[in-house]
């Protein structure tokens, strides 16, 4: 991410460097392999495994955002980031809300 300021000055667009792409790629592979092995080799119990899968997935999403989509290098006002946070809020509401409602639906039956 050292080239961040440099490329900023040139065009106002920032697209990272080869280094940041390689770091992102390696991190993505590692974050894919960890949950994969945890599942295939039964490293943990069920609850922990779900936790590991979710945490590594979210981390990998952040890796994509930071190293590939360069969300940190946006100029102010950060409309991209703001709309992304809005999307995350909607996503969590829809997914967690659905699970919540349907869980109680099952309890009622």
């Amino acid at each position, binding site marked *: 991410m050292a080239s961040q300021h440099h*490329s900023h000055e040139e065009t*106002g667009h920032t*697209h990272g460097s080869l280094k940041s792409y390689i770091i992102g790629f390696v991190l993505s592979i590692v974050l894919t392999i960890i949950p*994969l092995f945890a599942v295939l080799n039964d490293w943990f119990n069920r609850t922990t495994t779900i936790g590991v899968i979710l945490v590594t997935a979210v981390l990998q999403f952040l890796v994509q955002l930071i190293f590939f989509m360069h969300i940190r290098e946006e100029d102010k006002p950060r409309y991209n980031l703001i709309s992304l946070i809005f999307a995350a809020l*909607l996503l969590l509401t829809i997914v967690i809300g*659905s699970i919540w409602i349907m869980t109680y639906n099952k309890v009622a039956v």
Partner: protein
Amino acid sequence: MAQAHSNAHGHGKHDHGHHDLESLKQFGFWLFMITDVILFSTLFATFIVLRDNTAGGPIGTDLIEMNGIIISTFILLTSSFTSGLALLSMNKGDKKGLILWLAVSALLGLSFIYLEVNEFIHLVHEGAAISTSAFWSAFYTLVGTHGLHVSVGIVWMTAIIIQIAKRGITPVTKRKVNIISLYWHFLDAVWIFVFSIVYLMEVM
């Protein structure tokens, strides 16, 4: 539209005005992806809620072959990386490199779709069609919608490759490459969650 705009200005101002318009278009595409997140949220929510409703039919654990899925995952991951390399080539003004890496990304996407279609055919042969149970309906809708996005991306990327070959690296083609590469990273991000929530949690 964008070209008409740029031609109307003098050269000095042109770059700035053009850049504003192009980055506005890029932001517009970002907003499309936000709405796409909502689409995928509903599909994920549906899948998670219905995952136990197999109606006495086959369940995911029995039929899903992880080897193919693992290969697809790494193919898409690499493809996301190579679309980033395309962007780097473009910023260096390397037209050949740009076309090469875009083509590599599109071909990786194509092999991903090939594996996915094979997987679906295999599943249907094993008796798990979209109408078999609520689980499989949710499964095919979620995974299939992602596959459809990737397929559209391949066609789109091919069109951009042709355009770059004809027109070279211009502010307009630059913006288009920026957008397709965002889209490609986005699809990889969605796949991470498909892989985690559908496949990994199904076979664990």
